[in-house]
């Protein structure tokens, strides 16, 4: 095999167990994450390469622990913060508002 992996996402040839071929429905919140990427990309706010950079720099622990769309969400949030499209103060305030709204 070739050189060392370039990051936790570089999985070609890595040790791995059997394939779990179960079908999983995509949840609505996951579709919202996917739509967010599509819409931000169409409007020129975020490129797919930036999304990948955000995912590839999550660190090995987070990469393994997070689900697929959780990685996307984490990456997009980081990049939106970097670009100042959302602010670091606004997110926790909004999260609190959303949790308070839960039944």
């Amino acid at each position: 095999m070739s050189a060392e992996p370039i990051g936790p996402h570089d999985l070609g040839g890595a040790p791995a167990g059997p394939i779990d071929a179960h079908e999983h429905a995509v949840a609505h919140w996951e579709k919202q994450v996917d739509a967010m990427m599509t819409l931000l990309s169409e409007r020129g706010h975020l490129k797919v390469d930036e999304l990948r950079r955000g995912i590839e720099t999550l660190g090995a622990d987070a990469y393994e622990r997070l689900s697929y769309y959780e990685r996307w969400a984490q990456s997009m949030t980081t990049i939106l913060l970097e670009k100042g499209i959302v602010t670091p103060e606004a997110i926790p305030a909004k999260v609190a508002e959303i949790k308070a709204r839960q039944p």
Partner: protein
Amino acid sequence: MSGGHEHGHDHDHPHPFQPDDDAGGLTEHMALVAAVRELLIEGGIYSAEDERRAIERMDARSPAAGARMVARAWVDPAYRERLLADGAAAARELGVEVGPTRLIVVADTAETKNVIVCTLCSCYPRWVLGLPPAWYKARAYRARVVVEPRAVLAEFGTQLPDGMAVRVHDSTADMRYMVLPARPEGTQDWDEEALAAIVSRDCMIGVALPRADAKAA
């Protein structure tokens, strides 16, 4: 689908909203997504209507589009040539929009089987196949298919003849692959619609082979 909700009962009680999504409650990441989403909508970056339309477009895509392209290629040699030369243009010919990326269609032959993967992430020809299955995005498939494709195909129930070459194509963000499987024996008299019906998503990823006996009764 997950969820243990049996639908054999009378519907005289209120159902929870999207029980599959609610099963584990609101996770931290779901709350984060909801927060960022609302901030983007409030900031006028996009509207709830834009989001709804994007999800509708996503839900409308399915392997049926790819299957139509495969079936057309099986009955029309000129289309097959155009499909192999420029997958995106050939998709558009059949009314399938494929976005800005390149679509490279790789054709199986009697000697060669093709399989697609994205070892680094999850790049997938979603315009012609819909959203990828969970296993395509997961560690085991991405790690193993590039080093032991025969073993991986066998796990999917696909046994290749000895001596058949296997080519694994690693996708990128800008370049997506789709497999054009070989037309199976016993389908000589079939029309395009019947042919398309035996071309599954997994056949176009390359982990399965279309079979004449897969035709719906």
